[in-house]
């Protein structure tokens, strides 16, 4: 017999509704279509991030039975409860809460990076606040611009603690905590260290959930404009797979709309001289990585081999598991591979002095900004990648240039570093890298053609996934984690000798790069991430070539330049090393 959980009856604005035990008033109201404004509340239960501190008091409603006000996001429904969301008392309480928050908030909305994308601003508009009734002491904290990826302006913080939930509970990096108390409280790093001095991975998930501009991306668009305006520079850009599945949202397209052709045309209109596809680098990564995996399997380890394309994940293992640094693949990320080849192979082919080339990467990610700045990722003092702009920054540049994205014709990537396969495309989703690598490793190991390239058991949205794939005689044991907290679980098992995998893919952000810290804000809707994910798998399903080693331009690159996977030159340009770092 199945036990049926007792339902609880309550009334929201006189509408009777039955809800499951443990539901909040907010959930009950949603069920009957009653909107209650919220600010600190965040429910991303699919990725394990639920912020339910009830500390902004913007969702107050009237509890008729008790005659008092309660925060609807945290207060649980009880039998016979009667709630009014639109009584004068409730409306005024919510308004006052918001006005008090605004009284301690800088009023530079016009030039704020979150202008028109700020939840505080939206609420002020929705609650019809047209004057600042309260004035008083304001916070005064220095703005932290020390990291390459993330800026932190605590003066814009409303203490919602979403970032803390993300950083501590989901990512388990633990960079942020409330320090001090009362009016002096500030969400800060340990000992007020500069963000650049901490173990921050720059995954940017804190930025993804910050309702205001307290945490935001470093704005690199002025630097890119400057380079575009310099006639002596040959400015080359590359585009990551996840960007094309999300940027449409900035221009009113449905989530999950693929806009590759428009992305490329927009970049040409902005004045980039050449547009490369990071998927080309992904295909190259697959070949180098599969080659490394095969070598490790043949020579007895070290196994498992961990993917290394995600820079936030690399920072995480360097700080949190320095004793495991022999297991990640030595492959650079696709971004760095394309950058390195642009300043060597491409420069040689086009007879351009690499010193005159500026490489820009358009990424869904903020950690890519700090990855580009890593000391070891250069050749002869020239950085592989000079600047990284996020999906959001690119959208802002287009708007700034008054380019109507929706009216752009399709354009294709420049061929030399621009051909792509379906395998490289799914790098943008959790599970994609390892599926692409498996397709290639299969043929490398067995020497036979892989008939069905769809490894469906590697796909999905669960935080940790395990699968066995039969590759000839071999049973390849594969692990997948997305979100750094899930990665930690896998790594702890490896360190404790509890799990035995051959290969593991790790992505720092929930969903993989499609949920990156530089993507259009999803405002708490995880179904948007799933739509972006599906869009990439659709591109793969319809692609002419679906195995990385079938990429004709990659084959040409090996024939004419690199010789073979894992060659001396490949190692010099496409591989890197890691350094143990102290945890703060």
């Amino acid at each position: 017999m199945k036990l049926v959980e007792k339902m609880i009856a309550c009334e929201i604005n006189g509408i009777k509704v039955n809800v499951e035990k443990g539901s909040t008033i907010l959930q009950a109201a949603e069920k009957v279509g009653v909107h209650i404004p919220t600010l600190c509340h965040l429910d991303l239960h699919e990725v394990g991030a639920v912020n339910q501190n009830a500390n902004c008091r913007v969702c107050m409603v009237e509890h008729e039975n008790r005659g008092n006000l309660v925060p609807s996001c945290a207060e649980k429904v009880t039998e016979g409860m009667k709630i009014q969301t639109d009584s004068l008392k409730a409306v005024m309480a919510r308004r006052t809460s918001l006005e008090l928050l605004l009284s301690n908030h800088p009023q530079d909305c016009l030039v704020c990076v979150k202008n028109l994308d700020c939840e505080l601003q939206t609420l002020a508009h929705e609650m019809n606040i047209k004057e600042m009734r309260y004035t008083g002491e304001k916070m005064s904290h220095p703005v932290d611009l020390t990291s390459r990826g993330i800026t932190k302006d605590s003066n814009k913080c409303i203490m919602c603690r979403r970032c803390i939930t993300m950083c501590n509970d989901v990512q388990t990096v633990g960079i942020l905590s409330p320090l001090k108390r009362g009016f002096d409280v500030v969400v800060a790093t340990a000992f007020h260290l500069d963000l650049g001095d901490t173990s921050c991975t720059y995954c940017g998930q804190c930025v993804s959930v910050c309702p205001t501009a307290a945490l935001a991306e470093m704005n690199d668009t002025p630097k890119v404009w400057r380079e575009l305006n310099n006639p002596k520079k040959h400015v080359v850009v590359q585009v990551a797979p996840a960007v094309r599945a999300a940027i449409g949202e900035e221009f009113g397209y449905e989530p999950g709309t693929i806009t590759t052709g428009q992305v490329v045309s927009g970049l040409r209109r902005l004045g980039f001289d050449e547009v490369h596809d990071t998927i080309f680098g992904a295909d190259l990564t697959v070949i180098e990585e599969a080659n490394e995996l095969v070598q490790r399997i043949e020579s007895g380890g070290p196994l498992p081999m961990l993917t290394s394309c995600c820079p936030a994940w690399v920072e995480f293992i360097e700080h949190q598991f320095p004793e495991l640094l022999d297991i990640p693949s030595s492959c650079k990320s696709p971004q760095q591979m394309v950058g390195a080849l642009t300043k060597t192979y491409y420069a040689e082919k086009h007879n351009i002095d690499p010193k005159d080339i500026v490489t820009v990467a358009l990424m869904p990610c903020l950690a890519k900004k700090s990855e580009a700045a890593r000391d070891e990722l250069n050749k002869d003092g020239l950085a592989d990648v000079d600047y990284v702009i996020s999906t959001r920054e690119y959208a802002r540049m287009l708007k700034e240039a008054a380019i109507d994205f929706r009216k752009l014709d399709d354009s294709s990537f420049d061929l030399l570093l621009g051909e792509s396969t379906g395998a490289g495309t799914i790098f943008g989703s959790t599970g994609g890298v390892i599926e692409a690598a498996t397709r290639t490793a299969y043929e490398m190991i067995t020497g036979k053609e892989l008939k069905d390239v769809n490894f469906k058991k590697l796909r999905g949205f669960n935080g940790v996934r395990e699968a066995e794939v039969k590759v000839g005689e071999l049973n390849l044991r594969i692990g997948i984690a997305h979100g750094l907290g899930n990665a930690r679980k896998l790594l702890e098992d490896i360190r404790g000798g509890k799990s035995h995998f051959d290969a593991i893919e790790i992505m720092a952000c929930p969903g993989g790069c499609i949920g990156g810290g530089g993507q259009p804000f999803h405002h708490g809707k995880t179904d948007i991430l799933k739509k972006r994910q599906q869009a990439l798998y659709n591109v793969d399903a319809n692609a002419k070539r679906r195995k990385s080693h079938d990429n004709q331009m990659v084959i040409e690159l090996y024939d004419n330049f690199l010789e073979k996977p894992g060659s001396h030159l490949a190692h010099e340009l496409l591989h890197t090393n890691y350094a143990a770092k102290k945890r703060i």
Partner: protein
Amino acid sequence: MKNKILDFSTLDQSLLKKLDAYIDALEGDRQEQLIHVLHHAQKLFTYLPHNLQLYIAHALDLSGAHVNGVVTFYSFFNEEPVGKYTVSVCMGTACFVKGADKVLDRILKLTNTKKNVMSEDGLFTVKDVRCIGACGLAPVVTVNEKVYGNLKVKDVDAIIESCRGDEHVD
């Protein structure tokens, strides 16, 4: 600043051994006992410099931010060195209305220091604290463990003098 915080060699190594022993002897979930560990560490080191906080964070496998958050939340914990005598002036309502602010001003003047900053001679740290629950004695000042009640501003001079002359007994 980062390197200074990561450098544990500047901490008194013999005290650190005692702290290690204390942590090793803890039963149950160590992370839950952070406040006990901090209390003990402050007893040993008299204050909790940043590198000691990070040392404790590593020992309990907590983030530095979390430990620093707890230390800065409770006024009992000191992040800065403290003088031989901690002079706490109660600022509760009863003490305040009976002139605790003037008592505090006088003490700061006599010790030539600012609130929560150790005096140059290393003798005094002066704090204003919330109600210590001795309202009947308002205004109240404590010097280390000793309580002085029903104070008048002019009484302060003698108390501070007794500390200077090392005549103060807890």
